[in-house]
């Protein structure tokens, strides 16, 4: 790089160092492109990050990842980047335990063990469960394309009769995707189920932050450049194509392409000049629905004083079987009406991460309600999942949807990009807008996948597409 700052020239500028942006950046840099990642926060990872309070480490939101089985997609990408040189990835077994008043189901390292758990809890549905798992893990792509407009409920109805079983299967998806089966896309639900549950529970080193940090290291080794605390003010457009960005400090950075790993609304409505986005597309954006946000409790604990069932395992609880009602109550920020939670004790048994879906409200609302919300949430967790919790808490804090928005700039603190409904699946303009050259989007706003494994796929796909496309153009 030479010349003044105004002459900076890159092949690609990536806005945002979430996992999607990092994977994309690594693959592009590895292919020989000159890549710059600009991240508004002071560290990498987005929702896949960790922070420290005193000597206690907390994962911010993502607390494990999936798709790392031998033939899994996450494994394929991490192997391609030789990430194992940087981090040790272990797996918790069981990865998840789902509990309701009538059932306890563990998702085990071996599929046959998980199958046995379901068979013994729901004896009449044994073959259906085996068929369902086989369908989810089937490598036949067309089976999934066929269900593109289905809801996950319709898919469950195809396989099962027992309503309790359907609810037990869908509880972690309500938690991981923010939608009940009646609203969730069958495709998104299937991918979440196969990647998060049947092949979930992987953890890098001693904290989630190890994953983005390792990707940053690899990115730099491939010759990439990354700037933290560097927000973007705008994307530069010339002759109908993205030709760089202007940083928050006014610095113009030229590039052949721009990849946005940030919020889709921010990309289209804030970073691009209004004239670059057709009115009809703006209207379309206004009608799109973001995924739900979460309220996350961060609790430092004295492990001697709390009954810890299983460190490292995601513990799901729901006190009833009506997921539509739970969804409705979550949108009203009604903890008791929702009746459930996800709790995960950190592998070092020093902290608890607890998550409940929550609706976005303004700062004033959360200033008024956050502390009471947290205390009530803790009471429920103590009652339903961690006996003695309140006596063992040595530190407590929480992130409201407002906090999540502030740190990650995801619209309304959305946890999974656009809501994973059938009508919002695979919108081509969300990964590469047809009305603009040189601009790509990557990450969970692309409507192609959610969660760590979903955005690893998205980052890989963006890089693949960009490399192929730009080769022809240049």
């Amino acid at each position, binding site marked *: 790089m030479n010349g003044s700052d105004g002459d900076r020239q890159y092949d690609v500028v990536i806005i945002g160092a979430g996992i999607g942006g990092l994977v994309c950046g690594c693959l592009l840099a590895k292919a020989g492109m000159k890549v710059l990642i600009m991240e508004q926060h002071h560290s990498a990872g987005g929702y896949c990050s960790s922070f420290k309070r005193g000597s206690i480490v907390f994962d911010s939101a993502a607390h494990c990842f999936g798709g790392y089985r031998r033939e899994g997609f996450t494994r394929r990408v991490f192997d391609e980047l030789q990430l194992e040189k940087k981090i040790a990835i272990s797996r918790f077994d069981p990865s998840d335990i789902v509990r309701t008043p009538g059932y306890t189901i563990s998702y085990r390292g071996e599929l046959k063990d998980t199958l046995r758990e379901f068979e013994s809890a729901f004896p009449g549905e044994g073959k259906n469960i085996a068929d369902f798992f086989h369908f989810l893990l089937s490598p036949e*792509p*067309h*089976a*999934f*394309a*066929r*269900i*593109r*407009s*289905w809801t996950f409920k319709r898919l469950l109805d195809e396989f099962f009769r027992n309503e309790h079983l359907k609810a037990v299967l869908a509880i972690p998806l309500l938690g991981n995707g923010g939608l009940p089966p009646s609203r969730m896309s069958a*495709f998104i639900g299937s991918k979440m189920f196969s990647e998060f549950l049947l092949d979930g529970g992987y953890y890098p080193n001693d904290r989630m932050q190890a994953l983005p940090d390792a990707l940053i290291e690899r990115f730099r080794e491939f010759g990439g450049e990354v700037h933290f605390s560097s927000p973007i003010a705008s994307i530069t457009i010339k002759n109908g194509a993205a030709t760089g960005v202007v940083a928050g400090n006014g610095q113009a950075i030229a590039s052949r392409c721009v990849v946005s790993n940030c919020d889709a609304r921010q990309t289209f409505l804030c970073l691009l000049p209004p004239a670059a986005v057709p009115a009809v597309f703006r209207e379309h954006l206004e009608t799109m629905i973001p995924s739900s946000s979460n309220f996350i409790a961060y609790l430092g604990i004295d492990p001697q004083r709390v009954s810890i069932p299983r460190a490292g395992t995601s513990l799901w609880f729901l006190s009833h079987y009506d997921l539509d009602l739970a969804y409705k109550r979550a949108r009203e920020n009604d903890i008791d009406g929702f009746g459930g939670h996800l709790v995960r004790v950190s592998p070092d048994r020093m902290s608890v991460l607890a998550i409940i879906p929550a609706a976005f409200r303004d700062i004033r609302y959360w200033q008024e309600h956050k502390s009471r919300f947290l205390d009530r949430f803790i009471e429920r967790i103590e009652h339903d999942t961690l006996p003695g919790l309140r006596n063992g808490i040595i530190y407590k804090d929480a992130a409201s949807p407002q906090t999540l928005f502030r740190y990650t700039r995801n619209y309304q603190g959305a946890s999974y990009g656009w809501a994973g409904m059938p009508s919002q*699946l*695979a*919108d*081509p303009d969300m*990964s*590469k807008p*047809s009305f603009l050259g040189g601009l790509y989007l990557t990450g969970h706003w692309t409507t*192609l*996948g959610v969660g760590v494994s979903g955005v690893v*796929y998205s980052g890989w*796909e963006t890089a*693949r*597409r*960009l*490399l*192929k*496309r730009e080769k*022809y153009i240049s």
Partner: protein
Amino acid sequence: MSKSIEQGIIEIIADIAGVEPGDIKTETNFAKDLEIDSIKAIEITVAIEKKFKVSVRDEDVPNILNLRQAVELVTTLVEKKG
């Protein structure tokens, strides 16, 4: 009519699969030759629906294995629309 449909479909596939339009022949297999996976197949279907203002039935999506089949299906849908 079907020539412009073919051209429109080629543009969509070239863009989403990241290949040169000239690489897409009548019998090019989308999955094997162009690495189009299930989510890409859905993305292409959504793009076709937007461009030609038609609605592709779920059960037809798995039958679009190559350009010829895609053009046949879209031509039928456009004609039906009148």
